[in-house]
């Protein structure tokens, strides 16, 4: 079984899906000859040609809008937005159209697109290349939001996202692209959307994380009696798995890179308060980025939750009996 990093795993997923299904086409800035700035689509242009791997103009709203048009016609476009920081001009297309076409047309038209984009900190890039704005997309009923945390998971989730009949925003933690390698089988396997996974079972604290924060959570809480849950899909999220765990542990720590206010942790925290309040032994603690503009590289490490902060939060909730 090949040992792959996330870049290679995503590339493999794309290759296999394109081989399997003629309707899958790729489009985006520099995704063709160059293979994408992170090389996710490397070699696919040579393999499938410029008909199926389209270098587009620099045009985020256009890429999203054109993908929508292709999808309603019957194709399964997988578009790359080069960095999440540039997705904002495509928000109108995603919110006003991708998310609503099924509803607006009462199912006559659907929008099976995947918008892939790298996000999150840790790559020493210029402004707007490192933010985590996943919560924005979770406030769009009709869109699914998927975040992989390891190469194996990335491949399975991307295949499921491509096959999903609804629009998927597929957020790739750039920090993880080459950080970890693991066994990733060739050939098909899928990981269902809308389901979380229990990475480590435990009884004392439930720690909720996704994407790049999962590695840090494992470092901080891997040795403790923590139940670590990787959400994988943020919208719609797997509340059953979360509530079940919280009812068992009675203590919750939520970890994300994004600013705290209205971050996805707020939704999780409120949901747990509504549905599992009486099981809680301790206040829910969020370990998050700050409510400040994400700084450039020199201050980045102060902004992003680190292993120490996560450990402290776990110890804090353990103080309550």
């Amino acid at each position: 079984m090949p040992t792959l990093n996330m870049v290679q795993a995503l590339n493999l997923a794309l290759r296999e899906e394109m081989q399997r299904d003629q309707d899958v086409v790729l489009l985006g800035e520099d995704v063709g000859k160059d293979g994408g700035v992170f090389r996710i689509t490397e070699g696919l242009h040579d393999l499938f040609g410029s008909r199926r791997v389209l270098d587009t103009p620099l045009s985020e709203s256009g890429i999203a809008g054109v993908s929508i048009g292709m999808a309603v016609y019957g194709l399964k476009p997988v578009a790359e937005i080069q960095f999440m920081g540039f997705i904002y001009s495509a928000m109108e297309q995603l919110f006003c159209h991708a998310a609503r076409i099924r509803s607006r047309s009462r199912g006559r038209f659907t929008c099976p697109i995947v918008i892939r984009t790298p996000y999150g900190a840790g790559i020493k890039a210029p402004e707007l290349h490192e933010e985590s704005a996943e919560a924005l997309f979770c406030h769009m009923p009709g869109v699914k939001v998927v975040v992989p945390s390891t190469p194996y998971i990335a491949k399975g989730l991307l295949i499921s996202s491509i096959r999903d009949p609804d629009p998927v925003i597929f957020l790739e933690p750039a920090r993880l692209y080459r950080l970890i390698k693991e066994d990733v089988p060739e050939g098909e396997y899928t990981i269902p959307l809308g389901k979380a996974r229990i990475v480590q079972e435990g009884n004392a604290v439930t720690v909720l994380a996704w994407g790049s924060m999962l590695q840090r959570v494992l470092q901080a809480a891997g040795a403790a009696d923590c139940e670590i849950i990787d959400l994988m899909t943020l919208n719609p999220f797997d509340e059953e798995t979360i509530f079940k765990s919280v009812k068992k542990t009675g203590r919750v720590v939520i970890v994300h890179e994004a600013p705290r206010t209205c971050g996805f942790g707020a939704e999780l925290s409120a949901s747990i308060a509504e549905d599992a309040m009486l099981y809680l032994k301790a206040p829910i603690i969020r370990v998050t980025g700050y409510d400040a503009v994400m700084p450039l590289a020199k201050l980045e490490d102060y902004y992003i939750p680190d292993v120490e902060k996560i450990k402290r939060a776990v110890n804090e909730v353990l103080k309550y009996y």
Partner: protein
Amino acid sequence: MPEKIIESFNIKRLEVLDEKGDADASLMPPLSDDEIKKMYELLILSRTFDRYALNLQREGRLGTYASILGQEASQIGSAFAVENTDWIFPSFREMGVYLTAGFPPYKLFQYWSGDERGITPPDNLNIFPVCVPVGTQIPHATGAAMAAVYRGDKTAVLAYFGDGGTSKGDFHEGLNIAGVFRLPVIFICQNNQWAISVPRERQTASKTLAQKAMAYGFEGLQVDGNDIFAVYKATRDALKKARQGEGPTLIECFTYRMSDHTTADDATRYRSMEEVEQWKQKDPALRLKLFLEKKGLWTEAYQKKIEEESKTIIEDAVKKEEAIQPPQPKDMFTYTYEKLSQRQSRQIKDF
């Protein structure tokens, strides 16, 4: 080094049928007498639909509605050239396009009365639901055209939008990509001179909207948008070009919005009655009627007959629409995703 002219352009304006009802035979597109009468009948039908919609809104039986009065030639002339396999991406002021495409009028009333089920096209029509955010449907048309090419279909795609729409970023992005890939898409801009209260000169300093196509590397032309033959000819030519792989066309239909912007608007606040009066002379229906009369195809009796028929069709549509049971509250959830999410499965129990 001497400066050189490295690019220059001219913009054509196409007119076939004048206000007196005389057509330029050298430009007249091939249309049988029956087809021309059919166009006229669709024009009367659309106008009747529009009148009823405005009245129903006043009576509180319909929600906010955007009238097409004055723009019928632009809408019917263009949609008449389309083949059944072609795709259409309209904006919100295209009831003439929907009706010409064969969309059932009762469903249009159903939509404007606030029921999404109304705008679902019958299975044999590829006409997209109304697009409310101005200009954002333009890249969809480009994408559908890209998919048609990918599949090897001879399909062409039409996108409709207004003069206001040309100021949006998606106009640029949609036309730009269509130009780069030489896609079979026709951009129909109904320049009705107004975007609510904002006049055409406030949208752009360009002399015409048609010339914007030059920047994207394809043809743009202006047509008299109240001249159904000019609109039809321009669309037909553009469709032919598109099907031959010769790329997109931008057609600026120079027309006028005779009504308020919508039933929620009062146009007397920002434009003069003189201006509206001047455009009355250019009425697209009157012109076509005069043409038919000169050809011996129009009589008072014919007019009465088609008006009666239109009235019957529309009144039946209203009756049919008003008998439809309102949607179920559960329907809110049904089409969010293919399947209900965990949370939706709980929320739907409220109903």
